[in-house]
């Protein structure tokens, strides 16, 4: 059974159609990146999964039931994009309050504060917290009560690089424990390693949905093979160009070959066996490139109805 299932979901705010015929599903232990510009429908999708909104038409199921069901909410963790909490309460008091409301064991509170690195600041009032500290408190709150589904809205905003890496490490840990994660963001750099699947939205429609390699082959962006310190680079360039590859000489003895889909392995094989290179570097299209590809050609890759 799928943990989350959205079936031809449409949602309107008055006359404005925010979501148009959305189909999306998520397995246990899967990490989905949900990407899109502002107003693409990411937050609406999240709110539907959280049971905050009811779809105008279509079906939303979370672990087989409506997300408005109290039992389902018990298993959800949510980090909103902007939350300032209660300024007069300390971090510890805030987390205790939310733990009680979620019937999470009180021992978890201190463990979570330690996990997000707020142990030292937990006796201070939340109004003295920086944006990043609030974000971490929000994350701790989302992890209360061992959720089976975690929804994180722009989780890395305000976090320094180390805290971001820690966040991804936490997500990795949860994934191994079977928790599914939806990561909603428009910051894409470096996110590839931490997601299983990406869904790209624009103007209330799903433009793409699949694993990174599926998306790469779908968009047909080339992988770049860069060969450094290659003897007779000029001869190699001529040979590869003759075989129909797009090869370019960079400086005297560096070669850059752009390969599509299946051709990558072939070129690598030739170069490794016959060439005498100092270093070979392969760079695949990253999430940012895939994303901007889908954004610039929105109609070409519309997901199947």
């Amino acid at each position: 059974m799928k943990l989350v299932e959205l079936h031809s979901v449409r949602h309107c705010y008055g006359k404005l159609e925010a979501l148009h015929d959305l189909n999306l599903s998520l397995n246990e232990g899967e990490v989905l990146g949900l990407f899109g510009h502002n107003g693409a429908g990411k937050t609406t999708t999240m709110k539907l999964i959280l049971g905050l909104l009811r779809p105008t038409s279509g079906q939303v199921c979370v672990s087989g039931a409506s997300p408005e069901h109290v039992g389902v909410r018990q298993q959800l963790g949510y980090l909103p994009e902007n939350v300032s909490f209660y300024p007069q309460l300390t971090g510890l008091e805030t987390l205790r309050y939310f733990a009680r409301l979620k019937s999470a064991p009180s021992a978890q509170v201190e463990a979570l504060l330690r996990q997000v690195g707020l142990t030292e600041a937990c006796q201070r009032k939340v109004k003295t917290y920086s944006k990043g500290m609030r974000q971490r408190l929000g994350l701790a709150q989302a992890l209360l009560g061992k959720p089976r589904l975690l929804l994180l809205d722009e989780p890395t905003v305000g976090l320094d690089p180390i805290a971001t890496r820690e966040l991804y490490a936490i997500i990795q840990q949860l994934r191994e424990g079977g928790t599914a994660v939806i990561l909603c963001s428009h910051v894409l750099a470096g996110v590839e390693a931490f997601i299983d699947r990406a869904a790209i939205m624009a103007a209330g429609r799903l433009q793409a949905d699949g694993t990174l390699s599926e998306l790469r082959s779908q968009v047909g962006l080339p992988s770049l093979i860069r060969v450094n310190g290659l003897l007779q680079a000029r001869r190699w360039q001529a040979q590869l160009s003759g075989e129909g590859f797009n090869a370019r000489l960079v400086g005297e003895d560096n070669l850059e070959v752009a390969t599509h889909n299946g051709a990558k392995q072939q070129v690598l094989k030739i170069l490794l066996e016959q060439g005498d290179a100092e270093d070979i570097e392969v760079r695949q299209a990253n999430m940012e490139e895939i994303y901007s590809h889908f954004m610039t050609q929105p109609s070409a890759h519309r997901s199947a109805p």
Partner: protein
Amino acid sequence: MKPILFIALKELQDGLRNRWLLAISLLFVMLAAGIAWFGAAAAGQVGFSSIASTIASLASLATFIIPLIALLLAYDAIVGEDEGGTLLLLLTYPLGKRQLLLGKFVGQGLILALATLIGFGGAALAISLLVPDIDKLQLFVAFGRFIASAILLGWVFIAMAYVLSSRAREKSSAAGMALGIWFLFVLVFDLALLALLVLSKGQLNPDWLPWLLLLNPADIFRQLNLNGLDAAAQLNGVMSLGQDLAGASSTLWAALLGWMVLCLVLAQRSFMRRPI
């Protein structure tokens, strides 16, 4: 049930933390004591005059101040959480909107009730100890009725504040609406009623006129306290209308309670419809 308790507990702690409870209690003690001892100063005498006149003055003053305090305490209950982003979060928790509203009501209602009890109860205690040969039974009955009805009046206005807090998009507009409500029920209503009487030149059926007072919880409260006093207490303004209100006390209590329930139901409806 549990979430209601936890939310109420947090509201109560907030009330202690930001010293609302302390401030309101002190205010009430000073008001009650001041009126008891100096209420008759205008008539040229200082010192405790009588239970009836003390209660009458206190009731007039409480009519103004208790709705104001209740509205101030509760106007941001919903819209404030929304602005802080915590409303969105709380609604993803395993609790219903009704539980959230009820939890807040229990917590803030308790703050107001405690402050009223401590403030006016303390004053009653002081009077019973300091004034020689006072009829203690009469004193405590009168103050008991006054405190209970003041608490109920406060609850009505807390519930009213929830209605507008559920409707307002911003905290500042909720504050403005709260002031408007206060003006309407505390000042405008009585003036409008008097104007109606004058303009109708006695053509209105005098039998149902007193019932108009039931449309204003503040007037119900005042009536409830003045009813309990001896005829010696001078009634003036629209209050003289209520003298022959049928059923008297029990009708008034029921009407005040009805106001509270009505406002809570309205608040819940508005909250359910509030877009997130």
